[in-house]
């Protein structure tokens, strides 16, 4: 009643202050639960990753550290790399760039970056992603070509033609084969 602005009288106010003094951790139940002695809830809860777990990691170590965290992750732990791609795709790219220099092309990490629709802060990020995709080893590029095609489709108006067309050709070479389409896997 006090929460809703009703006058609970002097005695009531005194009692309320006394309770709060004796039990500083106590707080009223959420408004929708008022009047119920027992409250059950069920439903899905999103398992959110935590980009802060990668906060103090050097860009050059980002991919290795994210892999190590993922390897030790519990079933209910979120995807920290995905969280990073959503929060700071420019930094995620710097990590992938460093990994690529070492010959490491982690498909799932790249997919998370390519699917992220968070705007880039660094004006060079878009160009650098295209350059790295063009350097991706041909024999494994089909693993990331679905995500790359989606990313490219979003960049038609901004990516320079000297990057867009070579990348279009590379995606086409990897995708226009008799191999089964990846559409089902993309939707999953």
């Amino acid at each position, binding site marked *: 009643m006090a929460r809703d602005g009703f006058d609970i009288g002097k005695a009531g106010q005194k009692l309320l202050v006394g309770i709060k003094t004796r039990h500083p951790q106590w707080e009223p139940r959420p408004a929708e639960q008022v009047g119920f002695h027992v409250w059950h809830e069920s439903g899905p809860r999103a398992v959110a990753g935590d980009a802060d777990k990668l906060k103090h990691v050097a860009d050059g170590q980002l991919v290795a550290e994210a892999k190590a965290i993922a390897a030790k992750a519990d079933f209910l732990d979120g995807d920290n790399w995905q969280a990073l791609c959503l929060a700071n795709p420019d930094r995620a790219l710097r990590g992938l760039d460093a990994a690529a220099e070492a010959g490491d092309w982690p498909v799932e990490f790249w997919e998370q970056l390519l699917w992220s629709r968070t705007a880039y802060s660094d004006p060079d990020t878009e160009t650098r992603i295209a350059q790295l995709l063009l350097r991706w080893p041909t024999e494994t590029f089909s693993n990331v*070509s*679905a995500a*790359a*095609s*989606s990313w*490219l*489709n979003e960049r*038609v*108006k901004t990516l320079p033609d000297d990057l*867009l*067309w070579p990348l*279009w*050709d590379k*995606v*086409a070479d*990897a*995708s*226009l*084969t*008799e191999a*089964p*389409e*990846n*559409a089902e896997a*993309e*939707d999953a």
Partner: protein
Amino acid sequence: MRDAFNDAINAPAGRLAEILLRKVTKEDTELSGGLRARFDKLVDAPGRPGLLARVRLAADVPFLFVRAPNWTKDKLLPHFNWASPDAADLWSARKYSNAIGTPELFGLIKTPFLELFGRPDVQPEDMRVFGDWIAAILIVNQAEDAGYPLKPTEARAALRRAGPTALSSVGHRLAVDMESVRPADKATRWRKVIGPVFEAIWPLDVELQTSATTFKLVQIFCATGDAFPQAARVIIPFIRTDEPHGHGTVYSIAEAPAELYKASPAKMLDLLAAIVGDAPPGSIYSLGKALSRLRAVEPKLADERKFQKLLICASQHG
């Protein structure tokens, strides 16, 4: 329901096609250079990736035909022929097109277009969309002499093959057209455009006249305004008794504009009698309201046997 077009827009081949479509400029009269080579690569690709690329391009065939008519004619249109294994998927994708396209484009794929009506491998939803196209084409031909090479006899034959789903869609298009006309122009629109189109293409087959088509015919009625008496003369023969427990059609009439009741109360009574048929006593919701409105306009009608019979069928609850 998933179809090839949905698969295409979620697959690399479909996305590559979208990129090419977005790179075709207004200045392009035919594809050239690298752009043409890439369109060729997509449309000639083997297997399912090639099919998905062609399916994605099929939805934009009106756009491509304007920008690159020769390329489209040579490389894409042949796949619409039913001899092609791609035809069913390309026609299914075609329903997502924003436009029917130019009369010339329509003429080039008219034969497989008309053949799709009645094909067992064409989905009812596709049939509904293409039935609407038939009506739209004949309306624009009649109203503006647009020059689409489609004769009313060809349209009627296609609709007869297609069945009630496509016919309801035709009725909807005619109704929406009448609804969009200003009240002062309704009589002219009916006399010069919608009436002639209706009479030219609506099939006479009894089995094609259903409750669903009747509902659409009444929707046309409700939009005819001053042309109601003329429309009634043409349309009432195609009205069928409403389905038991349905009677949404009677409700539509009960809520129809007052001008319709005033334009021809006797025709309105004929219309109600045709829809109600031999319904059980007290079973038709909203019929009482429609009859009250009729009686208010033309009190003498209440003495007729037809009116009395309908009164018995009217529900006591509304």
